[in-house]
């Protein structure tokens, strides 16, 4: 028997054959110049030698080893794996946008700036904030920008002693990591039994070294904190500022404006809520939105507009107390264009339908599965629902095995072991772009896995069985890191 799979997975350097080329470059059409001193030149570059057809087939076959939104239901909680519209890519890749140099004078790129200016405006409107910067390159960088603004604002108001940042124990890891990078000390606040922030614990921390709080809304438990307005009040009364991690904004589009609830600053994940493709781990975009007190601190650039008598003129500016530049240029422009196209294509009515259907789909799954899996918070969920896969632990079946078993059935796994506060967490986020038929099949599949866990626990425990590869030895990977191809030693 041949081993086509092993052949398909041979690395570029293992396929390399001296003499093959993958692209023909132009001949030099100007006179040859003197090369630099020889000691500045490199002798050898270990790069592959392959022809174009082999390269295309190699990467195409690799792609087929992936689950993706285009091929599978992908209910990965906290990640909003919704359908990524193709028109967004088409426009972002067109030469009028993909062919612009970031250092071109602004007169030459007015079309691009028009889009960015309008996008700033739409995001202001959606969040109910008064200023937006599109500069952050992902959610975590948006968080960093947000907490840096808080820090600078407090310092400018003579409050540099305020270094305590409260972060709920269910928060995403980027929250504490970003707060730390901005120079804050992180203090964790517990969640109460119904999934809301523990108000008593919060009040106890509302001291005069309090800088603020970072709250994910809806929370990573998929819940809308019922006391949210009060939380904002408690923090404000104690002299702190309130940050919203808006990664879960898919639940709230058009339903409520984060700014109206009392938040001072937030970020959005365009690669979640606004449908830009996640690309196997990026690119993203994490715009920050702020109330007017923080506007002077926004990261550069901001897109401004001069209304000249018969012409509009857009320009780039740096707010007067800006926290500075977050990256070399103006944000992940290609991602921003996609989000703009998405918002225009859905419009006001469409945006509201997103959140309605995202929340409806999640509650449907919750209702249908709650007799089968432990539901730690039995109340209306938002766009995602968390279960606790503890039921069959005695048989060796846990959240991990159930996740892996789902892969056998052609569904991507939910987010597992996050939030950290739920034992054996399985966080399921269906998104609005899934049909009832898909949800029903998923629900049936989850029920049969529950059945399997009782009758054939080993089948679930040892999953996956049908994927290109079985469960991988992660301990080995970490103990003896093999992080790159190396040329085998010559004997």
């Amino acid at each position, binding site marked *: 028997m041949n081993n086509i799979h092993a052949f398909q*997975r041979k690395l570029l350097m293992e396929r390399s054959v001296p003499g093959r080329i*993958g*692209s023909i470059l*132009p001949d030099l059409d*100007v*006179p040859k*110049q003197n090369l*630099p*001193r020889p000691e500045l030149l*490199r002798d050898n570059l270990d790069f*592959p030698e392959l022809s174009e057809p082999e*390269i*295309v087939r190699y990467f195409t076959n690799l792609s087929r080893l*992936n689950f*993706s939104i285009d*091929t599978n239901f992908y209910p990965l909680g906290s990640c909003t794996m919704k359908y990524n519209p193709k028109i967004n890519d088409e*426009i972002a*890749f067109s030469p009028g*946008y993909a*062919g*612009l*140099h970031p*250092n071109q004078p602004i007169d030459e*790129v*007015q*079309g*691009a700036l*028009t889009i960015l200016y309008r996008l700033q405006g739409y995001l202001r409107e*959606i969040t109910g904030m008064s200023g937006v910067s599109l500069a952050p390159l*992902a959610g975590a960088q948006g968080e960093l920008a947000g907490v840096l603004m808080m820090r600078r604002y407090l310092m400018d108001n003579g409050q540099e002693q305020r270094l305590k940042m409260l972060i709920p124990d269910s928060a995403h*890891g980027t929250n504490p*990591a970003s707060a*730390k990078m901005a*120079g804050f000390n992180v203090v964790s606040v517990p969640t109460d039994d119904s999934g809301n922030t523990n108000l008593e614990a919060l009040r106890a921390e509302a001291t005069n070294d309090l800088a603020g709080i970072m709250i994910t809304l809806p929370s990573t438990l998929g819940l*809308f904190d019922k006391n949210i307005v009060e939380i904002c009040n408690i923090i404000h009364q104690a002299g702190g500022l309130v940050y919203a991690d808006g990664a879960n904004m898919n639940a709230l589009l058009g339903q409520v404006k984060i700014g*109206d609830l009392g938040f001072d600053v937030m970020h959005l994940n365009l690669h979640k809520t606004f449908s830009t*493709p996640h690309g*196997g*781990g*990026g*690119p993203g975009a994490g715009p920050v939105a702020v109330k007017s007190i923080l506007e002077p601190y926004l990261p550069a650039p901001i897109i401004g507009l001069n209304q000249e008598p018969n012409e509009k003129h857009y320009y780039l500016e740096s707010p007067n107390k800006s926290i500075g530049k977050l*990256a*070399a240029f103006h944000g992940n*422009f290609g991602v921003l264009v996609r989000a703009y196209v998405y918002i*225009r*294509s859905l419009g006001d*009515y469409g945006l509201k339908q*997103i959140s309605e259907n995202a929340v409806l789909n999640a509650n449907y799954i919750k209702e249908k599965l709650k007799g089968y899996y432990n539901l730690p918070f039995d109340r209306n969920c938002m766009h995602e629902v968390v279960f606790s896969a503890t039921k069959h632990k005695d048989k060796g079946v846990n959240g991990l095995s159930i*996740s892996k078993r789902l892969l056998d059935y052609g569904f991507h796994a939910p987010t597992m072991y996050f939030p950290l506060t739920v034992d054996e967490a399985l966080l399921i986020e269906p998104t609005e772009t*899934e049909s*009832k038929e898909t949800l029903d099949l998923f629900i049936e599949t989850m029920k049969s896995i529950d059945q399997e866990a009782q009758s054939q626990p080993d089948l679930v425990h040892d999953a996956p069985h049908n994927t290109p*590869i*079985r469960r*991988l*030895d*992660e301990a*080995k*990977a*970490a103990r003896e890191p093999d992080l*790159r191809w190396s040329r085998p030693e010559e004997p």
Partner: protein
Amino acid sequence: MPVPDTSFFQSHYIPNTPSQQQEMLDAIGVNSIDDLFSDIPAKHRHPTLDIPHPMSEIDLKFQLMALGLKNSNLEQNACFLGAGAYNHFSPSIVKPILTRGEFLTSYTPYQAEASQGTLQVAYEFQSLISNLMDMDVANDGMYDGATSFAEAALMACRVTKRDEIYVLDTINPVYREVIETYALPQKLKIYTLPAKNPILPATAACLLVQYPNFHGNIEDLALYKRQTEDAGALLVVSADPIAMGMLKPPGEFGADIVTGEGQGLGVPISYGGPYVGLFCTRKKFVRQMPGRIVGRTNDSEGKTGYVLTLQTREQHIRRERATSNICTSQALLALAATITMAAVGKTGFRQLSELNYHKAHYAASLIEKLPGFSLPLEGEFFNEFVVKCPTNPSTINKRLLANEIIGGLDISSSMPDCMLIAVTEMNTEPQITALVTTLAEFGS
């Protein structure tokens, strides 16, 4: 424009029809979707939403393509602009592979068995980037070249347990600003040193060097390596990957951390992003490295496979003690770079690099001879150089644009009347001649 009837609007991205929605509500046992939102304070529900109405695909495309035409793009104009982003060759195979849904629409590969494609690409990327820079290991990419450089400075402080970052005065000034954004809030100190004769104190955590530097010149890495070694500091180099086709890589000089902007490796120039930051280091520092890392291992049946590894460095595990807050990075662009490196290949990469070199040097030699123009900086350069002009560069750039040429970056605020010109393999001899001819109009 006619106003659409909202009661019948259904987005084409949402499959469930009103009657299916009703079925689902019945199953849940609530009357309306609104009931599901009851945890939101009533006072703040249903805000006005001042966003334009939905648009059809035809209208949207028409409008956006028209708006795109308002921009002067690099397909219609010759481009001599660089300073951190360059008009380089992107093989035709890049886009079709990039836009395959299996790559484009997958998440970060936390479920290894469902993400072997993405993971193997990351391992390829790490392998080729470490070969290119001649370093032990690379990660799967950072946000961009500037943030990579900044994160490298933070990492050097962790490794050396020192807090002084030294930066040459020849690095890209915007990169310098990004380093400040990242480092100052953590109470780290940043000092500037002259590239000519830097004296590095024994308290330094690192020296940051750009190679070639902001002005295109090839810095003397051997000298900086000696100085960092004497000071017990790390040598951190931000290197242009395209230049590495011909220049001796930083690893050969003993650099400790090497970063770079990966855009030149076939990534669309796209008005500044998305790009991909390169990040390499030595094996002994790998646990202090930020970003995702993919490792090779095997499955329960002994088959080779790939997984995210050394994850305890990252925010989802170590939280506030993580090496960085980075989570989503720029994997898709790392894929673009990997495809490009594979397609250009071993011999092609040298050739590509030399095309840049010869064309830039040819252009420089012609410009230098023009009356009123000069090359104010000495020293070897790669594909970018500073030109002193007889008048202010923005005036010259306007004339150039009228001739369908995008001129160099106006750097007159730091060097009076100077422009930074980049020439790449994409510039043909006629384009160079046209540039020189237009410039000649200004020589008096």
